[in-house]
């Protein structure tokens, strides 16, 4: 925590880190692991996700 507040971490931003059992982990929300369907196969039932929404 002190490191994240210090000048030494000038470029460290947007990290979710976990302290546990004397170790430091970088963690993230769970992300997609594999695709389950082709968009085209859904017959346009879903709105296409614009790439720029997921910067």
């Amino acid at each position, binding site marked *: *925590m002190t490191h*994240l507040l*210090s000048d030494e971490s000038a470029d460290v931003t*947007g990290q979710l880190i*976990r302290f546990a059992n004397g170790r430091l982990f970088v963690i993230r929300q769970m992300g997609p692991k594999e695709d389950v369907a082709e968009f085209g196969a859904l017959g346009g039932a879903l709105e296409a996700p614009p790439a720029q929404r997921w*910067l």
Partner: protein
Amino acid sequence: MVVTGAAQGLGRAFAEHAAREGAAVVVNDVEGELAEAVAAGIRGFGGRASASVRSVAAPEQAAAVIEDCLAAFGKVDGLVNNPGLRHESPLADEDPARLKELIEVNVLGTFHCAINAAKVMRPGSSMVNLGSVSMVGQPGVTAYSASKGAVASMTVGWAVELKSRGIRVNAICPVAVTRMGPGGDPPEKSHRS
């Protein structure tokens, strides 16, 4: 810098540790006597600290916490958004009033402090939010885990948004054997995610 919810638990440890590293710390909490005692303890070992007894859940009080830091130390270059309420409840038994209170502290309180800090922080400043690995969804504790999911989202969003201003935003998701404040879990249930 400001550490919210710093009268006990992790917030107190953050405030004391930062003060030992040379930071001038505003010790915020709703527990006035405890907050004053933590600030006095820091001054006792030669550190710089003042107490700010206000609730981060109220927008105007959160703004006043940041004002307190400006008044006491002239700038705000660090903010630790620490308070967190947590309760266990099956979904069907969730009490709307308790749910609202939790969201007001964990999510809105973090927002209110960050909004006001972002107005005055200069390049090189840093915010640290207290998250939890339960952010991915934890049965029986869904109010808490949902609030920490929000904190994770806010952290990443603010980090990207404030990067151009040289302000860092990160979150820590600790494991600590601490008991949450009055009304929290009994000690035997205090090992949380």
